[in-house]
């Protein structure tokens, strides 16, 4: 089994490396560089080589033969993350046949993997890129208590293998109203929050036993338990190999998430979390990160009545690590506006930038290669024509893995036609 996994990973790495062969160095010169991890460099230069950041500083020698991108008057930030969405899982939200985001067949679906449904050719991916989004945590949608395993993708690649950065990334658990609606209304469990928690505890207990059987028969193939994909997924959460993202809004649901994580020693990440501000101190004390969002949506359930515009600001002030998600497929590029709104409501600029770059990279354990402008990290960079999250600022260039990616999409192509038709320049 282990050999098989290594072989698969090997293929992924090879495939991802292929397009880089033969590409020379790139230098972005004279820009204001917001590194996120090491402050701001005025008049800075970034050298990109072999898909990585080879150098960054104010007084750098540009390697001979490098392709130079003039960064004067520009601002460079790390490629942004959407910390939770359904890119490549849902093409047209109202067309059910294009929706592979969740399986409403059983409330406990830990074995489902986003990677098996990802559509690298989704037009929504190209629509999201002009907003400077380089990475996305693609998660199964809600509706199940355990909805499956997410993947971290980069918004570039001709195939799923080229896009996927890390999978499985996390296990996804959903508390609150949505699962009750999905199953309770058709007289199946869970019908109540009590039922939901009992089912979750029960299945994790089952996984604990499966883990004991696995551990005690390690190296002895004949006695190992029959392979069970659901159990294997839960065991990796119990082993803390992957974190568990729990969507919870009402304060009581957040507390349930914490109880569940305590009981089974899970690496907890909270998501949605509209009432997290009520318990900010406790989240800080326990070092539980929070993925907020969608921020630009009216609450549609009673569990979200505590939502407030300054949730992000209050959590940041309390010292909680926050990231931001759109929970969308077709509206991912609105992340830009959502972050601007969080700033309007008290989140400092630098904290806002960190919430869509380094924080999500840290939360998902990829900050060794993503999330800031540092030597050795993957060259995911956004060149902006102004300060980030301002209404008149646009991404002029996006680099993912050291490659300048195409920012055209269905909309830009349509607009080209319209411009010609009406003579708009």
């Amino acid at each position, binding site marked *: 089994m282990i050999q098989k996994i290594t072989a698969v990973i090997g293929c992924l790495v090879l495939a991802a490396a292929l397009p880089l062969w033969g590409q020379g160095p790139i230098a972005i010169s004279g820009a204001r560089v917001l590194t996120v991890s090491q402050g701001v460099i005025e008049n800075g230069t970034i050298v990109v080589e072999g898909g990585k950041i080879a150098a960054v500083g104010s007084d750098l020698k540009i390697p001979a033969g490098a392709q130079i991108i003039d960064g004067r008057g520009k601002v460079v930030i790390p490629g942004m993350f959407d910390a939770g969405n359904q890119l490549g899982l849902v093409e047209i939200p*109202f067309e059910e046949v294009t929706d592979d985001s969740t399986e409403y067949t059983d409330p406990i679906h830990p074995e489902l993997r986003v990677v098996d449904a990802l559509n690298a050719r989704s037009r929504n991916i190209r629509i999201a890129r002009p907003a400077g989004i380089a990475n996305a945590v693609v998660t199964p949608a809600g509706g199940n208590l355990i909805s499956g395993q997410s993947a971290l993708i980069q918004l570039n690649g001709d195939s799923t293998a080229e896009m996927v950065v890390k999978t499985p990334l996390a296990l996804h658990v959903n508390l609150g109203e949505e699962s009750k609606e999905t199953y309770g209304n058709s007289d199946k469990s869970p019908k109540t929050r009590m039922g939901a928690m009992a089912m979750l505890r029960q299945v994790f207990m089952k996984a604990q036993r499966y883990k004991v059987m696995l551990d005690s028969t390690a190296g002895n193939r004949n006695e190992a338990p029959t392979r069970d994909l659901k159990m294997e997924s839960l065991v990796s959460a119990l082993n803390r190999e992957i974190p568990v993202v729990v969507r919870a809004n009402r304060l009581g649901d957040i507390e349930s998430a914490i109880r569940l994580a305590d009981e089974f020693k899970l690496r907890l990440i909270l998501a949605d979390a509209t009432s997290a501000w009520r318990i900010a101190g406790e989240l800080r004390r326990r070092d539980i990160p929070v993925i907020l969002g969608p921020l630009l949506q*009216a609450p549609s359930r*009673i569990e979200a009545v505590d939502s407030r515009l300054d949730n992000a600001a209050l959590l940041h002030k309390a010292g909680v690590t926050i990231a931001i998600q759109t929970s969308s497929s*077709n509206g991912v590029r609105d992340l830009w506006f959502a972050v601007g709104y969080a700033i309007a409501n008290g989140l400092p600029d630098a904290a806002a930038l960190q919430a869509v770059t380094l924080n999500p990279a840290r939360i998902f354990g990829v900050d060794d290669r993503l999330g800031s402008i540092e030597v050795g990290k993957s060259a995911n960079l956004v060149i902006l024509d102004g300060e980030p999250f301002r209404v008149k600022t646009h991404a002029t260039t996006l680099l993912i893995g050291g490659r300048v990616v195409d920012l055209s999409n*269905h*909309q830009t192509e349509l607009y080209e036609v*319209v411009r010609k038709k009406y003579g708009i320049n």
Partner: protein
Amino acid sequence: MSTGERVFRWLHSTAVISISLLLLSGSFLHGQTATAAANGRPIAIKGATVLTATHGSIENGTVLLENGKIKAVGAQIPVPANAKIVDAKGKFITPGLVNPHSHTGIYPLLGLQGNVDLSEANSNINSNIRSMDAVDTSDPEIARAVSGGVTTLQTLPGSDNNIGGFTTVIKLNGAQSIEEARFQGAPLGMKWAWGENPKVQHAGKGTHPSTLMGEAAMLRQRFINAQRYAAKWQEWEAGDRKSVAPERDLEMEGLVQVLAGKVRVHVHAYQMNHFEALLRLSDEFKFPIAAIHHALQAYEIAPELARRNIGVVTFGDYWGYKIEAWDAIPQNAYVLWKSGVAVSMHTDSPVMEDRDYRLQASIANHYGMPDEASLQTVTINAAKILGIENRVGSIEVGKDADLVIWSGNPLELTTRAERVYIDGKLVYTLNDGFLPWKGSPSFLHP
């Protein structure tokens, strides 16, 4: 009394009664808001950048409010000695925002089943229903909308049906009585919908219409019936009126109003083929269309809409959520504006929150629309589309004193509304929230 008058009486029956009572009592203005403003001192808001929406901007300007109206505006205007001075140095002032497409009040925030009165989805032609009969004036979204600078909105029945019903324009003054919240004097509006929603709704039930062909056929047949209905009444009225009057039919009366050109028709439609079907109908039955709403592909037909004086109500950028939204471009509003179409934003709340309406103008601005044109999409153009531009939508002398003081440029993402005035009365501050409901125990208030 003609059929038209009768319908008007029916639509305005409660309003007519309440206005006459007030006239008898000697005070036309009523309700907490108007009374307080009328009795209060004039207010002079000084030192801000005033974005008038129609006459450019005034640096370090003063806006003087008196008796619920804008009394004066300019860089150097005399301020009465008794005026209350509001220092707005470094701030921006805009007209109160006007949102021409929302479901606030009939789809109250959270959408709890018992509260939802969005759509009479069982019949397709609902020219007999009025959102006024359902508006929940305690909808928390009203307070939240004001916190985002919205002061007037039109709430429309949903889009499950080709004709959804009559709309209601309200001032977000926090009044509990719909008569006090209603925008007095606003023209009649009727919600229509074309395309996916009606056909999907009715096809799902196995009822007519389930195609675009069916939608057009049904509307044409009903209008032909309405023409006949009107003729029958005219004949009876022209006669000696001794015979029993023809039967009244509310659905027909609504359509007769449309045929008479007395209703502002607001049509939800997305695609080129929808627009063309609607223009064919409008030509065949000779009624005007006030605006096409959502209209994500309207850029394709911009000059034609301008020629026909049809407005467009659209999103800053909302893409790809269904097939008929597949050809949306974020420059839609910009292209329409360039072609001379009155283009407004909307929220379609709860699709987007009324509170965040301003952001729609910011998004249009982000995608290339000039500043003043962007501001117009949430103010004067929306007012024009509703036919209330003589009252709201710009900072001009004589207009209603509906104003927003912003922390910075209102188009900037990082800006917030700090104070909101409606009819000259302060109704919101960032610190104290929505003042008309202050102290009332409710959830979800800003």
